[in-house]
C-alpha cells in the first residue's frame, strides 16, 4: 500500500517538503500544489533529493494551473509530471491514503 503526499508550501521558506522526503517510501507519490509548486523548479532547495527519489521509483507531480499561475513553466526540473485536478482525484484513488503536509 502506498501514500500520496501533497505539499502546498514553498520549500524556500518551509520544511514540509524536506519532512515529506525523509519519510516517503517506494511507490509513494508526491503532488506539489499551491506554493508547493516552487519545489518543482530546478533551483529548489531540495531539487537534487527530489531527482534521486524519482530515480528510486517515487512519482512527483505538480498541479499545472498552479505552475502556470506562477510563471514557472520554463523553470521546471525534469521528470516532474504536470497534472490537472482530474488527475489529482485519480492519484488519490491510486494510493490508499493521502498525507497533506502544510
Amino acid at each position, binding site marked *: 500500500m502506498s501514500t500520496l503526499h501533497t505539499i502546498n508550501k514553498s520549500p524556500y521558506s518551509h520544511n514540509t517538503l524536506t*519532512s515529506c522526503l525523509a519519510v516517503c517510501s517506494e511507490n509513494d507519490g508526491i503532488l506539489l500544489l499551491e506554493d508547493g509548486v516552487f519545489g518543482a523548479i530546478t533551483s529548489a532547495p531540495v531539487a537534487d533529493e527530489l531527482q534521486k527519489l524519482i530515480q528510486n521509483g517515487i512519482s512527483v507531480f505538480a498541479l499545472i494551473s498552479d505552475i502556470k499561475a506562477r510563471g514557472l513553466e520554463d523553470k521546471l526540473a525534469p521528470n516532474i509530471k504536470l497534472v490537472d485536478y482530474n488527475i489529482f482525484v485519480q492519484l488519490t484513488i491510486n494510493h490508499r*491514503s493521502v498525507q497533506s*503536509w502544510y
Partner: protein
Amino acid sequence: MSKKILLISRQAPYGKSTAREAIDIALAASVYDQDIGILFMDDGVFQLLKNQQSNQIDQKNIASILPALALYGIENIYAHQESLNARAIRADELILDNLQLLNNKDVGSLLNQQDHLLSF
C-alpha cells in the same frame, strides 16, 4: 469494520491553535470505536515537553491534556525520533511514557498501513 486512522500533529503548541485542535479530534474520535493513532513529528514534538506553564499566556495546558489520550482509548501514540533528535529533546523530558519512537522508515511504513491520514 473499523478503520485505521492516524492523526499527524506537526505544529508546536500555543503559537497556533493547530496542535490543540488536532487533540480535540483525537478525543472526539474515541466514541466511534475506530483504530485511532496519533503521531507527533517536526515541531509537533514540542507538545510533548514537561514543564509547560501555559497559564502564563492564558491558554489551556496541552501537556495536561495529552495524558487523557490513553483514557480515551488511544493507545497508539507515536513520536518521530529524528524530530526529537533535531530539537535535542531527551526521553526524560517527555510528558508521556507510553510513546512509541519511530525513525523515518518506520513513519513511512506506518503511513502506508492507514486508511485515513488526518494531518495538522
